[in-house]
């Protein structure tokens, strides 16, 4: 029996207000627990695709369903609850540099509290312990009280992952999470994502530039070109030549 997909795109189009086509007629189904890698050149629409899933970007037409529910009409509280179950990791880490690691990690939990409690910092003891456990999972528990900007890039990205874990997400979106990291820290970050995918059955969607990385970690690879889905294969059927083509054909066109 085929399980219902956790995310589904149906005829999704996105046109920016300046006329640029962001996404063009995307049809895509992502099953629960998949490690999906999105490849394509800069400007191909990878970031846009990712951000439509948690409504950081609005689509122009079509329908996106998460857990079988169309998300386009969500507003206010419903939208915040949707975002709560979708963690996001960014190329630039997006930590608050001047705050402690603990505060950065706890900020991933704020959507479980009413606003006034977050302002007073009234986190429960259980959540503070959860913050420590999240940091332990990314091997950074000893940095709890360090200021975020005193950490290296790879450490900052792992703090960002710990922050996301506080949401207890069903889905993690990672937008070029390793683009500004060296090979060693890249491996640490990608391994962490893989562990979360396998241990917690979190659906992980990662935008990557690197073909070797994509082949190493993905269950399935999709390719975007000028906003269109041009490639979609499970990892067992992916060949090096296919992937090179995604990059080369467009480079020639451009």
């Amino acid at each position: 029996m085929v399980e219902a997909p956790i995310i589904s795109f149906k005829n999704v189009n996105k046109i920016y207000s300046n006329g640029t086509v962001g996404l063009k007629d995307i049809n895509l189904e992502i099953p629960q627990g998949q490690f999906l890698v999105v490849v394509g050149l800069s400007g191909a629409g990878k970031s846009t695709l990712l951000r439509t899933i948690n409504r950081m970007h609005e689509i122009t037409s079509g329908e996106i369903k998460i857990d079988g529910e169309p998300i386009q009409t969500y507003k206010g509280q419903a939208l915040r609850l949707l975002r709560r179950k979708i963690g996001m990791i960014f190329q630039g880490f997006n930590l608050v540099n001047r705050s402690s690691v603990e505060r950065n990690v706890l900020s991933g939990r704020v959507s479980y509290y009413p606003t006034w409690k977050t302002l007073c910092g009234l986190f429960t003891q259980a959540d503070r312990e959860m913050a420590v456990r999240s940091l332990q999972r990314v091997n950074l528990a000893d940095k709890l009280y360090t200021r975020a900007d005193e950490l290296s890039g790879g450490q900052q990205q792992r703090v960002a992952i710990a922050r996301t874990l506080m949401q207890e997400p069903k889905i993690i979106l990672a937008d070029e999470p390793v683009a500004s990291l060296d090979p060693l820290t890249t491996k640490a970050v990608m391994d962490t994502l893989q562990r979360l995918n396998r241990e917690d059955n979190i659906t992980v969607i990662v935008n990557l530039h690197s073909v070797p990385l994509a082949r190493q970690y993905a269950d399935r690879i999709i390719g975007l070109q000028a906003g269109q889905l041009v490639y979609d294969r499970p990892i067992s059927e992916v060949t090096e030549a296919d992937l090179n083509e995604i990059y080369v054909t467009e480079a020639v066109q451009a």
Partner: protein
Amino acid sequence: MSIPKVPRRSWIQRWHVKGIVVTGLLLILLVTSSRMTGVDVGMFFSNFGQFLNLLVRMSHPDWQYANVIVRPLLETIQMAILGTTIGAAFAVPFAVLSASNLIHNRFLRGLTRLFLDLVRTLPDLLLAAIFVAVFGIGSTAGVVTLAIFSFGMVSKLFYEVIETIDMGPLEALTSVGASKVTIIWYAVLPQILNQFVSYFLYTLEINVRASTVLGYLGAGGIGVFLQRSLSEFNYSQTAVIILATLAVVLVIDGVSNHLRRVLL
């Protein structure tokens, strides 16, 4: 091999038309303003002697007088601290509402900014005159004046700071599902706090100086003594007051520099 095609600059770019036009306009503005207002630059130099004369008379500070002005000077500092704190506290929400990267509703932002512009338009001397009439002679009028004056100034400085922050953490907090207020608390405030402190101290320094002038209108503080010494032509006392104020400003400046280094 062919020569690679390079886009050509338009003649406007090539001859720096914009820069030249702007410079020309500025020069015309300067010259016509000095003509029309009848400012006589020559007079500045021909009457310079009188200015020197004043300086000479101020050059024998009456150090005994320092004992007299300690209390009013303290009062001035207290007024400035109170006024700046009240003004800055009210400025924070208004600064947030005026920042274009936080409030996307143009109408709301425009309305807030219009209100702030209005507040800044009111000169502090006018405010002092009004509040002396309302609250009577004394430091209450001074504090209210300084509060409103700092509110107008600080809110502008604050929202300009907010507009320069890194938007990344805001994006992250949005993706977490945080409410707008929580986002501001967690992602905006930590980024601007040290600049807020630095602008707060800058305003405090301005207020210490401004309150010396406000004293003229009966709004309390050292200004009352400044006015008295000037109207009595007792320049040796004036000199002491100016030097004492300078000392206070220097101290605030030092504290401000130190805090900025520590907080950065």
